[in-house]
């Protein structure tokens, strides 16, 4: 079995974002980057499937982006993927979800992957499109938002998270793409021996031009902070003063505190 895991490296979402010179994305300086949280579940599920199948499956991890994404790929290798593919693209943020999916599909087209794992969305762009579009382009079956995954006899039994605590159970045949929701498993922390072992694993680099065949369907014109609706009271300063002030406000405006 051949498995592909598609990951993205994204900024820590607790960061304060500034607009970069292009005006259409964030300034990367001062941001700490890490593997997209949803993709950590994708890597973990792929590695678990490999381990459950007598280590027979071959797991390739792929990421598109500038040089920094190599760090996320190294982490995936240390978690147990076999090789990494870095599609070098400094202008990743100018591509829309359609182009990103097309690049992945162009890479995967002749490599006979049986199963592709990815996160249900990225934490930064958050379009939740790429995995499904890759499946459509490759003619694979696809299930999104997985909180349960089991594999046996060429069939995946997937549990999808719907709204309000409801889940649905579906079966799909390979080849397939599945997108992972938070809570699907418990992503492992790479151990030091595995980090050392990962250094010896293969890391291939391709320029994005090798796989970019499609023009954009949409473009970000402007990237900005949402307009403040305001109206709320802002409390800052000494903790005890703020406690007093908040209790006053609650007594005045809210029937719950008397």
């Amino acid at each position, binding site marked *: 079995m051949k498995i592909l895991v598609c990951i993205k490296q994204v900024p820590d979402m607790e960061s304060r974002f500034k607009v970069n010179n292009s005006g259409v994305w964030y300034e990367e300086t001062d941001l700490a980057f890490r593997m997209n949280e949803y993709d950590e579940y994708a890597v973990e599920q792929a590695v678990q499937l490999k381990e459950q199948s007598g280590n027979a499956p071959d797991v390739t991890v792929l990421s598109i982006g500038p040089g920094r994404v190599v760090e996320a790929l190294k982490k995936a290798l240390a978690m147990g993927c076999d090789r990494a593919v870095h599609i070098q693209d400094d202008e990743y943020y100018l591509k829309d979800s359609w182009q990103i999916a097309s690049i992945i599909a162009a890479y995967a087209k002749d490599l006979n992957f049986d199963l592709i794992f990815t996160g249900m969305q990225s934490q930064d762009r958050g379009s939740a499109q790429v995995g499904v579009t890759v499946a459509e382009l490759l003619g694979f079956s696809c299930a999104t938002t997985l909180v349960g995954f089991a594999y046996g006899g060429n069939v995946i039994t997937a549990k999808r998270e719907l709204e309000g605590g409801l889940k649905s159970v579906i079966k799909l045949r390979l080849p397939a793409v599945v997108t992972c929701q938070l809570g699907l498993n418990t992503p492992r922390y790479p151990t030091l021996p595995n980090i050392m072992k990962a250094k010896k694993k293969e890391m291939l680099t391709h320029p994005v031009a090798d796989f970019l065949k499609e023009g954009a369907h*949409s473009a970000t014109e402007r990237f900005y902070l949402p307009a403040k609706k305001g109206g709320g009271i802002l409390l800052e300063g000494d903790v005890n003063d703020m406690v007093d002030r908040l209790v006053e406000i609650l007594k005045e405006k809210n029937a*719950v505190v008397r």
Partner: protein
Amino acid sequence: MKALLVSEYREGKLLDASYELLAFADKLGAEKTMVLIGSEAAAPRFNGKVYLADAAKYGEYNPDVHKKIVLEAAQRENSDCVVFLHSSYGWDLAPRVATALKAAQISEVVSIVDGKFEATCCNGKMRRMVSLKTVKTVVTIQAGAFSFSGEPQGTPHLERLDPAEIASCLEFVGYEAAEAKAVDLTRAEVIVSAGRGVGKKDNVQAIAALAKALGGELGASRPVVDAGWVDHSHQVGTTGQTVSPKLYVACGISGAIQHLAGMKKSDFVVAINKDKHAPIGEVADVLVVADVLQFVPALTARLLK
């Protein structure tokens, strides 16, 4: 501009959120047609055309089958824009329809500004204004962003879609209901919720103590539940419970949209967060800029005095 609005149906019922699609189309100034894979009894109350395919025959959700049906309706209408909710149904189906139509897809649209789509990104912290380069467009709209006011009314003009059997590599097995709720947050007058900002499991106690001091229940955001700090039955948000207490206190919750969707109807919201730019500030009546672990125990002590 002709919009095809893809309504949602689950466990034999039309989902009310489907009416938000109408509000979006009105904002867009588009001519409206709906499509439903459901039942006649559950057809949306709307004075216009509704393409109806029978869920008893086609399933409540099989993406391969639903894609074909939506495409059939879009083709008959020659729709310019196909609109879904940004939900487990919409984000699963929309890219399939967009790929087939060679259409741009814009996800999680929150508003329309001068005819252009504004989408949220970076966990609700930022916005993108998007321009389109394709003839047709597929849009998913954020739940609650386009509110439908009033009672839905009208009589749909139903047009049946009855395609021959559609092949699929996917089989719907069934639903799995949410576990019985140990805690019914929907009835609570006060909810004090813990977010990732509380730092670790042991610190949840301080949040629970404040909830007790206010005579309320403990709530939690998704990351806290996923980390195993608080049981799922306390989760507030899209995939947890939707609440509307008299007082909601958000402790160390940045305010991801999935969380806001579950609590923004609260009467009064107090947010305690060390980042005064956190999106939770958008819905907070009072935003306390402080370290949760300093402020919350101090507030609890003051209330118990």
